[in-house]
């Protein structure tokens, strides 16, 4: 279809494009942007006056719960949530049921997602069979079926020898390994170590759980030459170690979740189970360090860490509740909030959820790497159109996702977000539209 998006504020963080203009799409490609030739005859015109026209968002961690929850239509609802959030590409972790350690499972997931045409899905393959931390998976086969990197999701590999071998094997082929830096023995608590956990009588996760894991990972990287992406940093001390590792020249990247970026342990309040998260949110100093690190590039990407959890698993005493919160529909609003708090320009803010995540993915996403997360002539037409000024409240019932639990729900938090998605295009097709 030929589509013209007229008079929008075009923002492409990668090139620095930041101007009012038009965007012309034909088929699955952007054919012109900025000034568009009068010869272009659109079948449909979308008036984007007063709206921002940006690359579609790229989310490096969103759980779709499929395979495992097909009967609940989760893939349909969660990809609809992605589109409603302006997300055009997402990476899903391998901790499905069964875990993504077989090429057949990966192919099926990609096939189902492609048919829905709402969002591009890039699965992470399991680093070890069954995520058990013992035997390696067939990483080459899994890559051929579509895995973009390998991960242990939230489990840790207990055996350092196995972890070293896994990194070595991945390095053989140049595959990246995505790891949560969390020591398996120190990481069992349900809240961050500190005054709040002590007061509330909740078992705490010390910062050492993250720093010890980071030291181990960096040392194994030096030994094996593997490329590692660190998922969901949570502490100031962790940030400092990553900064030094990058300065040293290690091939490492990192992300942070919307939850750790905005919340502290004080927000647990009276044992609000929406704050039961992994990693747990830490203290004020850590939040500030994470915000600054995302601004200066020490942390490369912001992720939603979208994890739909059912009511039965959340309305439980804090320690028994399943960790996780919904996030796909909040990523844009919370990114803009962070950017505003740090005094960043709109392009710099959006970079962390568009071109920077694509850079982290690198050649693993094939041809998409050339134009994913970008608005470029001849590139893929993955676009997010949003109103940067519209304020809205997070109402669990109105979310497209089946995950209704979030610490940012207006009812408990009183938080209002600015930034409402008006249209999401994936490969030139309208995946989501919201009439103002």
């Amino acid at each position, binding site marked *: 279809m030929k589509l013209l998006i007229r008079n929008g504020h075009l923002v492409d963080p990668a090139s620095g494009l930041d101007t009012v203009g038009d965007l012309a799409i034909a088929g699955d490609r952007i054919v012109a942007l900025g000034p568009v030739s009068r010869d272009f005859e659109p079948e449909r015109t979308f008036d984007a006056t007063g709206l921002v026209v940006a690359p579609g968002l790229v989310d490096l961690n969103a759980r779709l719960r499929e395979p495992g929850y097909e009967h609940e239509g989760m893939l349909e609802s969660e990809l609809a949530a992605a589109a409603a959030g302006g997300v055009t590409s997402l990476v899903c972790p391998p901790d499905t049921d069964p875990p993504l350690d077989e090429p057949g499972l990966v192919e099926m997931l990609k096939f189902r997602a492609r048919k829905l045409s709402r969002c591009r899905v890039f699965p992470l393959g399991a680093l070890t069979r069954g995520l058990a931390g013992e035997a390696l998976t067939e990483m080459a086969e899994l890559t051929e079926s579509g895995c973009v990197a390998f991960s242990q999701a939230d489990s840790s590999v207990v055996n350092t020898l196995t972890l070293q071998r896994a990194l070595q094997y991945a390095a053989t082929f140049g595959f990246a390994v995505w790891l949560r830096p969390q020591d398996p023995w120190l990481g069992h608590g349900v809240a961050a170590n500190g*005054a709040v956990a*002590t*007061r509330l009588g*909740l078992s705490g996760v010390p910062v050492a759980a993250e720093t010890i894991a980071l030291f181990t990972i960096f040392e194994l990287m030096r030994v094996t030459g593997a490329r590692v992406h660190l998922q969901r940093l949570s502490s100031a001390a962790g940030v400092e170690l990553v900064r030094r590792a990058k300065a040293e020249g290690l091939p490492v990247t990192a992300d942070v979740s919307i939850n750790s970026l905005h919340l502290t342990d004080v927000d647990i309040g009276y044992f609000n*189970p929406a704050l039961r998260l992994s990693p747990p949110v830490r203290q004020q100093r850590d939040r500030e360090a994470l915000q600054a690190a995302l601004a200066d590039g020490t942390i490369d990407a912001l992720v939603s860490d979208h994890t739909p959890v059912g009511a039965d698993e959340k*309305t*439980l005493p804090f*320690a028994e509740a399943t960790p996780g919160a919904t996030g796909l529909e909040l990523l844009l609003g919370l990114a803009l909030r962070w950017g505003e708090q740090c005094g960043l320009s709109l392009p710099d803010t959006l970079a962390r959820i568009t071109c920077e995540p694509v850079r982290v993915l690198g050649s693993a996403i094939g041809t998409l790497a050339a134009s994913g997360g970008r608005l470029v002539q001849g590139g893929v037409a993955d676009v997010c159109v949003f109103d940067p000024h519209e304020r809205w409240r997070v109402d669990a019932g109105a979310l497209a996702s089946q995950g209704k639990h979030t*610490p940012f729900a207006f009812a408990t938090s009183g938080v209002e977000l600015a930034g409402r998605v008006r249209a999401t295009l994936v490969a030139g097709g309208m995946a989501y539209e919201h009439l103002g």
Partner: protein
Amino acid sequence: MLSQRNPQLNKNGELIHLLSIEGLPRAVITQILDTAGTFLSVNERDVKKVPLLRGKSVFNLFFENSTRTRTTFEIAAKRLSADVINLDIARSSTAKGESLLDTIANLSAMHADMFVVRHSESGAPYLIAEHCAPHVHVVNAGDGRHAHPTQGLLDMYTIRHYKGDFTQLTVAIVGDIVNSRVARSDIHALTTLGVPEVRAVGPKTLVPGDLAGMGVRVCHDMAEGVRDADVIIMLRLQNERMSGAVLPSAGEYFKRFGLTADKLALAKPDAIVMHPGPINRGVEIDSAVADGHSSVILPQVTFGIAVRMAVMSTIAGNVA
């Protein structure tokens, strides 16, 4: 960023649930202690019953076993003329997979007026208070490591009974404080009532430095901890702690942190010795001290019934 109203108080600042001592205004605590005094005299009469909770049903929901605590709540409720139903949750529907909230909903359908809840997870009573019907009151009988507010209140009653003015006291709490809900409730109550020096005494594995954030002075030496103390509260050492990973043995613990006559001699001559019970003789406290003239462990039990009567009648009389 997030804000919530204290669920224990209604919009007039009156107590409708007792979930934790933390966050209770000093006036509310003092009021309960005063009321407990009245009930103490009731418990000394021949007719120990008053009709305040007549026609009300009090359900004891004990997800964690405790015959002694449950019994004191039962006695207290019955002396207020309430009907008492004891639910042994471990063996009931929850074991069959019924969720906590389904259990609560079913009990509410049986016209429960008050739940007395003990649970192994911190925060469970808050979840129940949030989800039960508006007219139902919740009393926390101990949740995980977080709080045991009625124990905290009866400990304060005991101290007030023997020592009078809180603002001149030195109180030492000794034992497994990091894992103790009794210790947390005692600390909040003592600091709210204006006790100038509260000491937390024990080895570093049981009394980590960051406890100081709760307003206590951390001591890793028993002699220093009990020196010139007016009140010594000994905590029970749980068997799990002595498995070897946290503490090497009961014997070594007793030598270093057990309350013996010679350690007691370092405290003030009229110091009182308290313990929430049940006591492990020869582990945290010497038998002779537990039975000696400084010990007020048995009076604590008597005060406990009066305090629980005060708590239940106070919250039952306030509308959500």
